[in-house]
Every structure is written in C-alpha cells, then in structure tokens.
C-alpha cells in the first residue's frame, strides 16, 4: 500500500506553540534540543498516523510529562567517573551555576521570608490582615460581578433569545421603550419573518395567581405562554414533558410549587384550580429557575391558547393592534444577527396601525444577554442600566485592593532601614541585585499566599452577610478550576504588585554605606510613602463622600411628597373572578368591621400606572401631537381612601352622576396647556368628558422620574385592585383577621393576599438601597484598610524615634508635646488627601446625579463631614501609637546606649 502524505505546508502541522514555549522556558537548555527534537519527530509521525488534533493533544501531554525537576535541574549528566569528557558532553561548558529562580534557592528565600514574618509579628499581622481584607473584598466583588455578568446564562439558548420591545413616541417627541406588545404580533412574526426565527412565543405578564389543589391554597407568579416557550428557555424537566402545554388544559409547575401543593406525592396528572376559574392537569414539573435569571419568579406556565379562549378581552385583543398588554419572546435561528433582525422587523406592527390616530411605534429586539445589564432606554436607544453598578463595583474592588497593596508597600519600605544591614551583608557576601529582588518578591508572594488563605476564610465567613446585602444566593465556586486559576493568578499578581516597590527599592542600597554606618535615609526617602498615604486616603474619602451622596439621593427620593397617604393603606389584587361585582356589599361589610376607614377600587395600583391612552383632544390642542395620558378607572371613594390632595374643583361624589366626570393631576393640566381647567371639556372617542377637579401630582411610578400626566375617571367596571384604608391606632393583627373574614366570604377559593402600600412603595428603592448598602460596606472597609496601614506606619515611626522621644521627655517635653510631634505629620497628610478628594468626588457625584430627574444637591456639609470623619479616625488611629510612645518610660529606651 502506498502511504499518502499530507501535502499541507509544514508550519500548519506544527505542535501548539505555547506548549513549545513552556518547554523552552522550563527545560535546561543543554537538554532542550534533543528532547524537543524527539518530541517534534514523534509529533510528525503521529500527525500522519492519527489526526492533527489528536497529535497535538498527545504533544501537550508529552510536554507536561517533561515538566519534572529532572529536566529543569539536571546539570551534572555525563560520566561521573574521571575520564576524558567529550566536547559535546551534556555538561555545559560555561554555565556552572544554574538559574537560581529554578533551583533550591527559591526554597531558601521562602525560609528567610518566613523567619522575617515570624520575627515581626505585629507588622506581619497588620500587613497580612490588611491584604487579606482587601483580597476578600475583591473576591466578593468579583463574585458579585460574575453573578451579574452571567445573569440569564443558564438558559442554553441565551445567545439567541430576545424579547420584542416597543418604542413609542410619547408626548409629541419623547421616545419611550417598554416590553409590551400587541397580541397579534406573534402570528405576524411567524407569517412574515418565520425563516429568521426558530421559535416565537407570545406571553402574558408574569403575575400572581391563586392556586388551589384540594384544601391547599397558595399564591405563585406565573405566565401564559405558547407551547414552545418552555423548550426555548430550556427548562430542566424533573418529571413530565417539556412540550406538555400543547394540551391547553395542562400546566407546568416549578418543583417548589409542586412540592408545596402536593408534598411528596407524584404531582403528574394531578388537577389544580387557578384563580378559581379553570382546572388544569399537571403535565410536567421543572427545576426552579436559578436565582440569577430574569424569569426566576415564574413558578408556573399555562397555555396561551387556553388564555385566548377563556379570557374575553384577550380573545378580543387578538384582532387589534392597539392593545399592547402582552410580551413576545423570540429565538433567532443560528446564523441570524440580532441587530440586523431588529432593523428588519422595526416597522412590523406599523403596517397594521394608523399613524395619525395610533401614533408611531417601532419594534426593538432586546437580546437576553442584555436584559439584566442594559435595560435602560432613552429615546429608543439602550443607554445602560445595571452595567453602571457593575462598573462602579469593579472600580471599588480595584481600589480597595490597591489600598491593601499600598499598605503592604508602605510597611515594607518603612522597615527598610532595619533591613538595610541585611541587604548590605548580602551584597557584600556576593549577592547580585537580581537575587535580592527575587528574595523580596518571594517574600511578597509568601505574604500574598498567606493573605489569600485568610481572604478565602474571610470571604466564606462574610458571604452570608454579603448575600443578604446584595439579595443574591452566591457561593464560592470551590469546585471550579477557573475560580482557582483566577484566584491564584490574582494572588501572584497582587504579590508581585505589592512586592515590586520594596524589591526594587531595598535592593538598590549601596552596601558600603550601609555597613559603614554612614547610610542615612535621605530627606526625601519618605516622600513616596507620603504620596502613597495620600493616595490611600484620597480614595477612601472619595468613597465615603460618594456613599453619603448615594444615601442622600435615596433619602431625597424617599421623602419626596407622594401626594397621598400611604400609611395604613392596604391593596388586594383582584386575581380571581369572585371578587368582582360585589363592590357595594363588600364595602359595607368592610366598613362594618370598624377597623376600616374607607374602601375603594381602581384599575391601576397607586404605585404604578398600568394604562396609558392616547386619543384625547381638547380646545387648543396642537393637532400634530398625540400625547398619551395615564388613564385610571376608579370608584367614587378612591380619592377619600387614598387621601389625595385636591387642588381645584371637587372630588368624585355620590351626589353627582359623575359618569362623564374626570379628575386630572397637575402634570396632565400642564400638558393640555389649559387655564382654569375645571368645567372644561376633554374629548375621547366621541365622548365629552368634563373636568371636575384637579389633584396635586401623586408619585405613582418611579420616584426619580417626573410624574405621568394622569386622568382619573369613574368606571366601576374597570377595576383590578381593592384599596382598604385602615383606621389609625388599631392593632394590626386583629384588624387583618377581621379583613380576612370578609375577603374569605367573597373569595373562598383563594388565600387572603394583601400588600401594604408603604412596603410596595419602599420596593421601588430596593435596588438603590441595596447598592447603597453595599457601597457603604465597601467604603467602610476601605477606610478600615487605610487606617490599618496608618496604624502600622505610626507605630513604626514611634519605634524609630523611640530614643528621640526618650531624650525629649528627659529634657522636659510633655505628653502633649510628644503626641503633637508624632501626629502632626499624619494629620497634614490626611488634610492634603481631603483637598485632593473633594474635586474628584464632586466631579464624579455631580455626573452620577445627572442620571436622575429628581436629585439631591451636593451640599458642602457632606464633604465637610467626610473630611472631619477622616481626620477624627486618623487622629484616633495615630494617637493610640503616639500616646503609647509618649507615656513610655524614657529610662527603658535610653538605657541601652
């Protein structure tokens, strides 16, 4: 048989370059040539025998086998006995000493380093603890960032999934983007763009549902989705079929819900009732979605087809393009580019809309990878979102680590004078500078290594607290190789970074001067140390100022007048049909409990506006614009229940019919541009609406954003939420029990599920609050680390000037004199840092605040407080050491000489 040789050029058939380099770096030079030659020869043969990939794998494997001390160290190969040596003997002719970095010297360095550490326990522990704290913080932040960056990545198709968003022109020119689309969109995308999408699924909003199985009743969030949706998300099925929703009367449950409904019994084919409306058969149970996914709250999936058939208004909406109350998820085909596809479907819905009456809208594909981090739109373009927090934390993490490294550098250089003799002797005995550098670097690496172990411990200890602060469920991924690679790489880097300055600084001492005793640290020797302290404190003070301002902003938004009374106000969402249609009876029953002040119903909760409508017109309106108004249907008692503040006109009242009456908020009045609006007419859908009152603006949506112009109208048929205003001063427990009884009477199938409005309102701050708490946590640590360094430096200075202090005391200096002497320098440094940090933090925080429509001011007292705080802490830190030095008995320090 004739063997065929591959004709590819030889360079394409070469072994992996990195493996070769590793070999070249590691193997002693006089052995390298033959070893590498043999390896290459084998490789070339294997390429012909097996495949290139296989041969490369084998090559790497063989190289790894070569990385033994034998090949690294072998220096004395050759006939051991005397005799004529050949010229090409394996013993190198002119390099009798191997590279010390690769030989036993390295063990020696660590030994010396260990002894040094042990000898100076105080300094060592400050250095190690400081570095460990910094590393632990960096580790936790890294974990947090990783968690954020991999959000939603547990879905196998996350690179190809997207949600269709709608960008609308609002108020004439401003573009707003939201996730709501019209229900025919799914079919439209399938019909006209089907070749680009592997899957398209319409879905309802993820809302709370009442679940009942036998006697068990629970509430869980769920979505109505098309049958392909679970497999788009790649749900992990524990039981049953992922395509189970093809049968419209089926339901997919998450494991946690199945467990709480059915306990340990087999849930498959069990029947349960949703919202006391319809019964479903369990077709499958999936593993709860991981914590770091956007849809993790969806605990059940129901069939979209059933939804359309069962719910009247949804069925109606299938024919109309103007009701945007649904969501649409798509999975693109493999080769489709999301940006190009966005351009393609941009106007898909406009074909069915009338631009003049319905306004302009564009569709945007929001890739799943961006859901979490790039969720903010401005004028139809992504402007960021949580990614800003990720960047912010990355910066904080780097700075905290930097502070820890600076501590290390400062303390080691401070001790340099003590070690100068050691360096001198080493040099005199014959060490070359590179050996000293290696020694100091290995010392730094040893410290970093120990600090790393401590930091693992700290991180593990603080993880529960950190998880609570950040509302996450993270664990240290000990079993991940990647984690260890990053950690070890990071430790080595930290060690090298922290050790670089002392290594190069200490090794340059002139041995002659040091040993003769004429060596003196020059006037400017401590200058770099001072600069580093200033850097440290500038960073710390900036972080503190930033944190205070973040807090101030949160408080500012929290204390913004909301325009209604959110204390002792309860909301019950009407999810089951049983609650509808008993308004008057229920109201009188509730009032009869004597714990309820008032009760009302409305179409949107008071903490958000669910419906924005266009098509209003009035006298003097610019016909070219089509502004949208938040529109809320209410019952007549709404205003009194939530205690809104009437500015003009009257409230809705039983004394009037009010079927065509509307009440506007100030923002809406401003938008119409009308003066003396009470009594004027606003037209909508051929209907004349009379303005009977104007209320003060209420904060119904984001407390950071301007108030939505809103129109309230009396429409008892269009309600979703029941409000119960409780009487003041009544024990909550009893009151709730009484309410529960009334609700059970009308809605026996569902549990009494209520929310407090003030809690719901506080929810709006949870993200900012969390970030604020985390930032405060890190800022406090940064200050702590900086102070730790200062503490070490102060004790060093006190130690260094021990004799001087002794003499001064003998000659009559008071404790205050000594304290002043030692503290002044540090205080000056901190004052200087403060001056550096003020413009820096002013610049950053000013920029940050620009993100918010409603923002607090950068008051001078924030800066003053941070500065004073830093000064006080420094004083406390340094005073401890200086007072200790000042009250020490001078006899002790002077006796030795």
């Amino acid at each position, binding site marked *: 048989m004739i063997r065929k040789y591959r004709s590819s050029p*030889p360079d394409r058939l070469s072994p992996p370059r990195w493996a070769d380099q590793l070999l070249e770096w590691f193997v002693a030079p006089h*052995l390298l*040539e*033959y*070893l*590498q*030659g*043999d*390896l*290459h*020869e*084998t490789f*070339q*043969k294997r390429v012909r025998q097996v495949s290139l990939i296989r041969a490369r794998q084998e090559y790497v*494997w*063989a190289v790894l*086998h*070569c990385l*033994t001390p*034998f*090949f690294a160290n*072998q220096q*004395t*190969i*050759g*006939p*051991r*006995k005397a005799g004529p040596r*050949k010229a*090409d003997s*394996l013993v190198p002719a002119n390099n009798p000493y191997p590279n010390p970095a690769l030989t036993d010297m390295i063990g020696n360095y660590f030994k010396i380093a260990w002894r040094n550490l042990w000898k100076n326990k105080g300094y060592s522990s400050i250095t190690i603890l400081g570095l460990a704290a910094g590393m632990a913080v960096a580790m936790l932040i890294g974990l947090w960032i990783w968690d954020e960056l991999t959000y939603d990545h547990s879905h196998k198709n996350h690179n190809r999934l997207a949600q269709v968003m709608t960008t609308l022109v609002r108020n004439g020119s401003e573009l707003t983007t939201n996730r709501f689309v019209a229900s025919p969109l799914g079919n439209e995308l399938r019909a006209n763009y089907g070749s680009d999408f592997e899957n398209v699924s319409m879905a309802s909003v993820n809302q709370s549902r009442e679940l009942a199985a036998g006697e068990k009743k629970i509430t869980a969030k769920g979505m109505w989705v098309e049958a392909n949706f679970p497999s788009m998300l790649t749900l992990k099925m524990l039981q049953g079929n992922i395509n189970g929703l093809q049968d419209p009367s089926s339901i997919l449950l998450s494991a946690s819900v199945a467990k709480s409904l059915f306990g340990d019994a087999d849930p498959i084919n069990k029947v349960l009732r949703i919202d006391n409306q319809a019964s479903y058969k369990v077709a499958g149970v999936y593993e709860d979605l991981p914590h770091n996914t956007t849809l993790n709250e969806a605990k059940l999936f129901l069939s979209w087809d059933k939804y359309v058939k069962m719910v009247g208004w949804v069925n109606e909406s299938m024919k109309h393009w103007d009701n945007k109350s649904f969501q649409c998820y798509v999975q693109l085909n493999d080769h489709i580019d999301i940006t190009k596809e966005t351009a393609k479907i941009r106007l898909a819905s406009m074909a069915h809309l009338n631009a003049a009456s319905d306004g302009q809208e564009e569709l945007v594909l929001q890739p799943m990878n961006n859901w979490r981090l790039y969720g903010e739109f401005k004028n139809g373009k992504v402007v960021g979102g949580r990614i800003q927090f990720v960047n912010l934390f990355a910066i904080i993490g780097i700075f905290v680590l930097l502070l820890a490294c600076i501590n290390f550098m400062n303390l080691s250089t401070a001790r340099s004078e003590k070690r100068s003799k050691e360096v001198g002797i080493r040099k005199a005995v014959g060490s070359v500078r590179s050996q000293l550098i290696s020694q100091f670097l290995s010392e730094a690496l040893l410290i970093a290594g120990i600090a790393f172990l401590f930091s693992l411990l700290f991180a593990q200890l603080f993880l529960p607290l950190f998880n609570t602060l950040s509302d996450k469920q993270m664990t240290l991924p000990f079993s991940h190789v990647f984690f260890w690679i990053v950690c070890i790489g990071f430790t080595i880097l930290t060690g090298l970074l922290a050790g670089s300055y002392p290594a190069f600084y200490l090794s340059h001492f002139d041995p002659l001067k040091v040993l003769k005793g004429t060596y003196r640290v020059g006037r400017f020797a401590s200058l770099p140390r001072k600069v580093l302290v200033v850097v440290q404190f500038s960073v710390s003070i900036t972080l503190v100022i930033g944190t205070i301002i973040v807090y101030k902003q949160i408080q500012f938004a929290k204390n913004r007048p909301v325009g209604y009374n959110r204390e002792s106000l309860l909301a019950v969402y009407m999810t089951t049909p049983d609650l509808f249609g008993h308004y008057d009876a229920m109201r009188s029953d509730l009032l009869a409990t004597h714990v309820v002040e008032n009760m009302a119903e409305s179409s949107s909760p008071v903490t958000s506006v669910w419906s924005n409508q266009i098509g209003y017109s009035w006298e003097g309106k610019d016909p070219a614009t089509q502004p949208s108004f938040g529109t809320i249907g209410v019952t007549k008692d709404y205003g009194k229940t939530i205690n809104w503040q009437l500015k003009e006109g009257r409230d809705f009242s039983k004394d009037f019919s009010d079927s065509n009456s509307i009440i506007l908020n100030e923002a809406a009045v401003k938008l119409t541009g009308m003066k003396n609006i009470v009594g004027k007419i606003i037209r909508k859908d051929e209907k004349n609406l009379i303005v009977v009152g104007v209320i003060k603006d209420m904060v119904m949506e984001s407390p950071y954003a301007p108030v939505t112009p809103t129109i309230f109208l009396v429409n008892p048929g269009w309600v979703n939420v029941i409000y119960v205003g409780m009487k003041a001063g009544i024990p909550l427990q009893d009151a709730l029990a009484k309410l529960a009884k009334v609700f059970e009477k009308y809605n026996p199938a569902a549990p009494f599920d209520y929310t407090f409005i003030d809690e719901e309102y506080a929810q709006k701050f949870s993200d900012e609050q969390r970030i604020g708490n985390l930032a405060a946590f890190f800022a406090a640590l940064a200050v702590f680390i900086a102070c730790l360094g200062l503490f070490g430096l102060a004790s060093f200075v006190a130690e260094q000037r021990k004799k001087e202090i002794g003499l001064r005391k003998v000659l009559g200096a008071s404790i205050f004199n000594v304290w002043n002497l030692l503290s002044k320098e540090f205080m000056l440094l901190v004052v200087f840092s403060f001056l550096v940090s003020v413009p820096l933090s002013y610049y950053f925080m000013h920029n940050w605040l620009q993100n918010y429509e409603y923002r607090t001011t950068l008051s001078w007292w924030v800066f003053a407080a941070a500065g004073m705080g830093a000064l006080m802490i420094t004083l406390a830190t340094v005073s401890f050491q200086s007072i200790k030095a000042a009250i020490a008995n001078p006899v002790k320090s002077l006796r030795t000489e």
Partner: protein
Amino acid sequence: MKKTVLGELEELVLLVVAASTEDVYGVPVLEELQWQTGRNFTISAVHTTLYRLEEKGFLVSSVGGATAERGGRSKRLFALTAEGGRVLRDIQQMRTRLWEAIPEGKFQLLGL
C-alpha cells in the same frame, strides 16, 4: 554483581540500545520499547532513563544529524559501553541461575 542496580525500565532501555545495530536516539528507543512491551511510555521517561544510564556509565552519547522532521534539531545518539554490556550479561547470568533453580515440574503443577 556490582553495587549498581538497574531498575526495570533502565534494564529494558539498555537492552533496546544493546539490541540495535547502530547508534540510536530517543524516538527509536521509545518505539522499540512500545513495540516490544505493548505498553505506553512517554518520551520524557525514555530520556530520563537514557541520561541516567549515561551517568552510570552504561551508555555513551554523541550529537547526531538533524532532520527536517525534527525542525532542524540534532539528535543525541546513544551507544552501549563495555560497562553496559557487562552489566547486561551479569543480569542475564543471574536470571539464568535463578531459572535453573526452579524445581522441575513446578510449572507443570501450576498448569503452565
């Protein structure tokens, strides 16, 4: 026998070198070894052993020709020394003595 002890791999490698008609280097030794034993060896093991045998004085080495296949790198060729031959012969004699010491019929009893 002298105090120098040969390990199993050392012995095998030494035998392979001894069996070849000319000077050999790493790759042929490795291949012959794998062919004869049916086991897998790595090149690093072969090199280590060759060098160790040279150190013990059983082999001598010289630098040989380079080929394109090796990326122009030269070979280290090994040849058996008289010392090496002697040690192999000693081992064989010792083994033979031990073989002869096995009682007659013992293997038959074991069914071999």
